């Protein structure tokens, strides 16, 4: 037992005891504890095993920079690996498990790696797993994957929900410590809209971990007053438990709010976490600083901890980290820890200061408290199997001394926490005066306090207030003058000490990735002298902590090893996220069926009532077929639907096809330029099929355009390309020919449209529409169109056909869609009208040789599809020039043909490739492939469309359709792509 709870003090609720488990053992903590503070309070020092050597590890810090104390939190589907015990809030019933050990934390077989450590040096992977090459995939990679990683993912579906939100503000303050609070207060008092984010569950930052005085009250009281004032203001949002994890372009920040991580399970209707996108006009970066470890032998032994963390555990959690701690420091700040511990009644064993001269006030403080002081001395080794028992000190005179100790608090100075300032490419700059990297100037951002190297509390308050006022002013708010409160004095001297020379044992630089000082020097010796190479070769700073505690020490060691200064060595920069963010938060509600929106047509409910099976077409759900009772196989259903349409009448919802309304004086000219064929010759009341190319000469989309009134056209597009065509037309209208007087608008969702197809379709419409419109062949011939009054609505009728039957498309305002399809079905009862789905539609279009998405694949020309003659030579149109390229008019190009199996009982499969008989199966013998296949109930065998080299000239030829994955090989016959009613007689009846 080393750590223990003190009788008083701390921001914990001593009335509320919480029980929790660590590795199956039950402990008690208090509300306000973190897992780390509760473990320390219970005397637990050993919490994990290190990544590579499986060395025993304890708690190093008291914040999100923690590299060691990573645990699995919760169990079952909610199990979450690599949770930092130092930030995980304790709740009743919490279960935590140590990681990276087997069979137990105390006895870990993997620790043998430590004995083998001579081979686990820098670049170990590169050196060891090189030969033989064939071993990589089969042996090395599985082995490494098994050994790598720390915690285990739950491998179950996450039961919680996550959500996303947006926020906008004048001033975003990142960090709720002294500087951040001062900034938020001064900006808010000026009337600016302020958002203050802090990753912790209490505001205050270091003010909670130190015993400070501001304006006559304690730092904690001052924090609470500041928080209360901020929360009383209407335009201020204080976001605790919210980590700003990334800075993005346009003053946009990503933040994750841990709404329910501090609860066993989220409250009803609450998400586990919420991802915020915050857009700010000005930003105050008040992210504080992170204390640097000292690099000496066995500095990773459980019980060795950051000096500031020891103070945080003392003041914030009422926990002493040991009974006889030693402080090892190269800074004045280390002494504060010693004095604070002593004041709390803890017998500080010694302060070992690497400096030979320290300020008189520290010396007198040492004298008053009677702390044993060694100046110009260093800790060179530590002992203890699973926790610290003794430290070895080399004194100024070179003599050695062993000191009994159960905790060692190390203080190597503070590094400004500059991560967010580098996310957009800001390069940190080195300060010789402070021996730290400082953030560079950033547009729209003001850095305040310790984050910019101003390490005293007085400076943090002063700079924070000034930053808040400046940010408010630059967003149009008058900031009243801020009278900075007086604070107690402090010393902030530092003499950086990058490495304790000649120390024994491994001296760790990066605790999470097990990178030692020797690894850094070895890498330098082997030529990895660039900071980027060092990082990748040794993995320094590549852990989940992004080297928060290790980077600067590593750079300093590299500088020393290569005889350069730290600014000459340079530094790596940080990428988002600042701390790990769960995938759940990024995914939000976009899971499973909600991955993207689902669009439903006006007749969806009707189709569902009819027992439709639905299929996705772009974002739409379309009826695929309507099975009748007794039908056991989808093909049986589809065959019935096709036969019913071809023999009588069927109805199909075609509302999902893109519909674009085009109007204006120059609408006809515009259409001539976007379609390959002539539209300007189309009279009012007529519809024409059109093909649209991209400017590179390939087909983009096809559809019909109806001239419904002078200068007023309605274009249809394929379902999938509706948005793309809209964008293409807007580009043509606004960018290419802005001089044309033409306006376009998408009306896809405004109109419900139904195809009525089959020999009885006219009779059905006559019954439904009564005298509203004359649909006789004379009055309304093939390709006619009209807008007409039908009952209370304006409806549109088009005589177009995709099925090859006598067919109409009736369009009604979408709100009448459901009623219309029901009315169509009622009107058609006499002729046994059937609803038919996408599958029957597909069968009939293949029977007629009409192209669809499988053929309009972005790689085909109009000529490839047998539509080359549609290309007008009398006008210019998009794609005309490049469609004439030699490669696109090559007679050998694959072109559309029909295919039948020679053995009519054989099934065809789309995707099968064509080979001439006798040709070997090789890519250069490839003649094309089957694009679409269907069973034709009219011909009673399978048919297909395909793209075949010189296709149209090869009708009658026999080929092999080669499909090694499914059918093997089938002999097929090349035929015309129009299988059914080649004269088109049915269409025009």
């Amino acid at each position, binding site marked *: 037992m080393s750590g223990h709870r003190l009788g008083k003090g701390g921001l914990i609720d001593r009335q509320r005891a919480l029980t929790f488990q660590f590795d199956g053992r039950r402990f008690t903590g208090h509300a306000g504890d973190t897992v780390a503070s509760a473990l320390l309070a219970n005397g637990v020092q050993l919490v994990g095993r290190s990544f590579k050597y499986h060395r025993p590890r304890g708690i190093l810090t008291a914040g999100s920079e923690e590299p060691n104390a990573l645990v699995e939190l919760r169990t079952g589907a909610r199990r979450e690996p690599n949770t930092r015990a130092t930030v995980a809030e304790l709740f009743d019933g919490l279960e935590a498990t140590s990681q990276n050990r087997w069979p137990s934390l105390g006895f870990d077989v993997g620790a043998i790696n430590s004995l083998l450590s001579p081979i686990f040096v820098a670049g170990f992977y590169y050196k060891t797993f090189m030969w033989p090459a064939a071993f990589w995939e089969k042996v090395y990679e599985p082995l490494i994957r098994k050994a790598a990683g720390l915690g285990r993912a739950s491998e179950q579906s996450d039961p919680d929900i996550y959500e996303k939100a947006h926020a906008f503000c004048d001033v975003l303050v990142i960090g709720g410590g002294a500087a951040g609070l001062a900034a938020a207060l001064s900006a808010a008092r000026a009337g600016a809209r302020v958002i203050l984010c802090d990753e912790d569950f209490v505001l205050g930052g270091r003010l909670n971990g130190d015993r400070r005085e501001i304006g006559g009250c304690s730092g904690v009281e001052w924090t609470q007053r500041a928080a209360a004032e901020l929360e009383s203001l209407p335009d201020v949002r204080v976001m605790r438990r919210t980590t700003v994890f990334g800075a993005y372009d346009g003053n946009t920040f990503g933040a994750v709010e841990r709404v329910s991580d501090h609860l066993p399970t989220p409250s009803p209707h609450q998400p586990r976490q919420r991802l915020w996108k915050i*857009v700010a006009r000005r930003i105050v970066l008040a992210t504080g600083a992170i204390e640097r470890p000292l690099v000496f032998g066995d500095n990773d032994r459980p019980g060795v901890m950051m000096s500031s963390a020891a103070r945080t555990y003392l003041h914030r959690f009422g926990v002493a980290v040991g009974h006889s701690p030693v402080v090892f420091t190269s800074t004045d700040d280390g002494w504060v820890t010693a004095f604070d511990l002593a004041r709390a009644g803890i017998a500080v064993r010694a302060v070992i200061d690497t400096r030979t001269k320290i300020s008189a006030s520290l010396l007198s403080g040492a004298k008053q408290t009677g702390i044993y002081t060694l100046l110009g001395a260093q800790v060179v080794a530590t002992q203890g199997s699973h926790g610290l028992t003794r430290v070895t000190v080399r004194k100024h005179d070179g003599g050695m001394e062993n000191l009994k100790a159960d905790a060692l608090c190390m203080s190597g100075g503070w590094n400004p926490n500059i991560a967010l300032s580098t996310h957009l490419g800001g390069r940190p700059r080195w300060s010789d005066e402070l021996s730290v990297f400082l953030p560079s100037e950033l547009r729209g951002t003001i850095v305040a306090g310790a984050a910019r190297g101003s390490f005293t509390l007085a400076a943090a308050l002063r700079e924070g207030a000034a930053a808040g006022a400046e940010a408010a002013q630059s967003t149009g708010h008058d900031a009243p003058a801020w009278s900075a409160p007086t604070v107690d004095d402090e010393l902030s001297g530092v003499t950086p000490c990058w490495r304790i020379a000649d120390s024994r044992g491994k001296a760790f630089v990066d605790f999470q990735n097990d990178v030692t000082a020797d690894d850094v020097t070895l890498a330098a010796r082997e030529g990895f002298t660039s900071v980027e190479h060092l990082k990748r070769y040794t993995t320094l700073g590549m852990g989940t902590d992004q080297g928060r505690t290790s980077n600067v020490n590593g750079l300093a060691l590299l500088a020393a090893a290569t005889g350069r200064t730290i600014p000459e060595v340079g530094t790596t920069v940080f990428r988002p996220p600042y701390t790990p963010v769960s995938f759940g938060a990024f995914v939000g509600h976009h899971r499973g069926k909600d991955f993207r929106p689902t669009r439903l047509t006006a007749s969806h409910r009707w189709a569902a009532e009819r027992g439709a099976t639905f299929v996705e077409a772009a974002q739409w759900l379309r009826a695929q077929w309507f099975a009748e009772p007794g039908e056991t196989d989808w093909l049986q259903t589809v065959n019935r639907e096709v036969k019913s349409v071809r023999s009588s009448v069927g109805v199909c919802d075609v509302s999902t096809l893109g519909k674009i309304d085009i109007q204006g004086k120059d609408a006809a000219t515009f259409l001539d330029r976007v379609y390959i064929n002539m539209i300007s010759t189309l009279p009012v009341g007529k519809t024409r099929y059109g093909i649209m190319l991209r400017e*590179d000469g390939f087909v983009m989309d096809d559809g019909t355009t109806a001239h419904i009134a002078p200068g007023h056209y309605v274009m249809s597009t394929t379902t999938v390309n509706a948005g793309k065509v809209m964008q293409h037309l*807007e*580009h043509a209208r606004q*960018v290419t020919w802005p001089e044309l007087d033409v306006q376009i608008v998408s009306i896809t969702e405004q109109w419900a449209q139904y195809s009525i197809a089959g020999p009885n379709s006219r009779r059905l419409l006559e019954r439904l529409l009564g005298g509203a419109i004359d649909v006789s062949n004379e009055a309304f011939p093939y390709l006619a169109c009209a807008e007409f009054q039908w009952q209370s609505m304006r409806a549109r009728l088009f005589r177009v056909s995709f099925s090859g039957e006598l067919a109409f498309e009736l369009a009604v305002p979408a709100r009448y869609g459901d009623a219309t399809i029901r009315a169509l079905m009622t009107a058609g009862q006499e002729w046994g009208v059937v609803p038919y789905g996408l599958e029957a539609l597909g069968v009939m279009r293949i029977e007629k040789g009409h192209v669809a998405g499988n053929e309009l694949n972005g790689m085909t020309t109009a000529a490839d599809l047998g539509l080359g003659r549609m290309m007008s030579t009398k006008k210019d149109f998009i794609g005309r020039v*490049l469609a004439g390229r030699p490669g696109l008019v090559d007679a050998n190009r694959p072109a559309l043909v029909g295919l039948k199996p020679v053995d009519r009982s054989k099934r065809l499969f789309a995707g099968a490739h064509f080979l001439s008989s006798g040709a070997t199966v090789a890519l250069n013998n490839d003649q094309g492939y089957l694009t679409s296949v269907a069973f034709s109930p009219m011909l009673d065998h399978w048919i297909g469309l395909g793209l075949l080299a010189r296709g149209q000239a090869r009708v009658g030829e026999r080929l092999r359709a080669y499909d090694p994955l499914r059918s093997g090989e089938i002999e097929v016959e090349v035929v015309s792509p129009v299988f059914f009613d080649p004269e088109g007689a049915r269409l025009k009846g």
Partner: protein
Amino acid sequence: MRIQCPFCGERDSSEFTYLGDATVRRPDPSAPEQYFEAVYLRDNPAGRHEELWYHGFGCRSWLRVTRDTRTHEIFTVEMYNDATTETNQEAARA
């Protein structure tokens, strides 16, 4: 990234679709040899770039955006076919 749409105001870049160089003009069909360059060849400048963005989830305007490709700083945003802009007036004079 945020784009100041002249019609809709400042909006998130996810509402827009990027096309590329806004200075490319569709060549005269009588000069087919220029088409290959106009359709396929693009510079990849580091720095100031005049480019086309389509506000598909907004007003459907095609915009001429001048942006620094290194920093994503946006200098100007204007409607591509706004005849009152300086760029278009210059083009009209030329």
